């Protein structure tokens, strides 16, 4: 039943004004200030990592939890050299039929390679990161206080300079 409801909602959100109306009414976290770290060196020398909230993970990895109504605040490590064929998407809250065909819609690996070949940005970090963006309730605390901190630890370990974050 829950699955049918999810599918209905996903279809509904394909209507642009429904998406806009919902976004404007969504009780999002309200922040008062914004952290800020200016770029420390030219972008072409910056090591980059990508984080997607599109539910992307290695096929061999554990899928995200689709049964918990507050979502799954965990993350999956994705080696940056991974081929699309090795990736899967587990995320019942958006229509990923196009992203299943072309992972670049939520994890822009090909465009990033092109930008690197043109010298616009530095090399990729060893890992990218997959999250399942549908996170709410008590899981928001886990997302910020645990998951984000684990990701940051890994980013620092890999000496990452810049991070691109992509929603679904």
């Amino acid at each position, binding site marked *: 039943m829950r699955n049918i409801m999810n599918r209905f909602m996903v279809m509904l959100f394909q209507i642009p004004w429904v998406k806009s109306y919902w976004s404007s009414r969504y009780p999002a976290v309200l922040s*008062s200030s914004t952290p800020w770290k*200016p770029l*420390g060196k030219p972008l072409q020398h910056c090591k980059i990592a990508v984080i997607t909230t599109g539910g992307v993970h290695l096929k061999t990895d554990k899928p995200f939890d689709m049964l918990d109504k507050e979502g799954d605040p965990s993350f999956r490590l994705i080696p940056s050299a991974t081929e699309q064929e090795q990736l899967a998407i587990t995320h019942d809250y958006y229509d990923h039929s196009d992203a299943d065909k072309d992972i670049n819609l939520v994890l822009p690996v090909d465009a990033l390679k092109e930008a690197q070949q043109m010298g616009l940005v530095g090399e990729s970090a060893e890992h990218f990161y997959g999250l399942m963006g549908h996170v709410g309730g008590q899981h928001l605390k886990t997302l910020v206080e645990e998951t984000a901190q684990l990701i940051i630890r890994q980013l620092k370990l890999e000496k990452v300079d810049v991070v691109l974050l992509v929603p679904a």
Partner: protein
Amino acid sequence: MCNQTVGLVQREIEGQGISTVGISIAREISESVKPPRTYFLKYPFGHALGEAGNKLQHFTILKESLELLTSVQEPGTIIDSPYRWRRYRFEG
């Protein structure tokens, strides 16, 4: 939801000294969460980089997003993409 998750994680990373840029497809949510730098597109869920197979579109959006890392000077800035969904034609 995805845009909130992006913003919250982005804020944590930036707060610990790593520069970040995020793509958004839900402007109101980014306005509320206030991540450091945001490139906003009025695109459907699941299509932050555009349409399947449109490599030039993906590259253009990625490039313009990354450019915010150097061009944006004001924390919390949201730049609106000029590329309308299925209206703008990307041609090489």
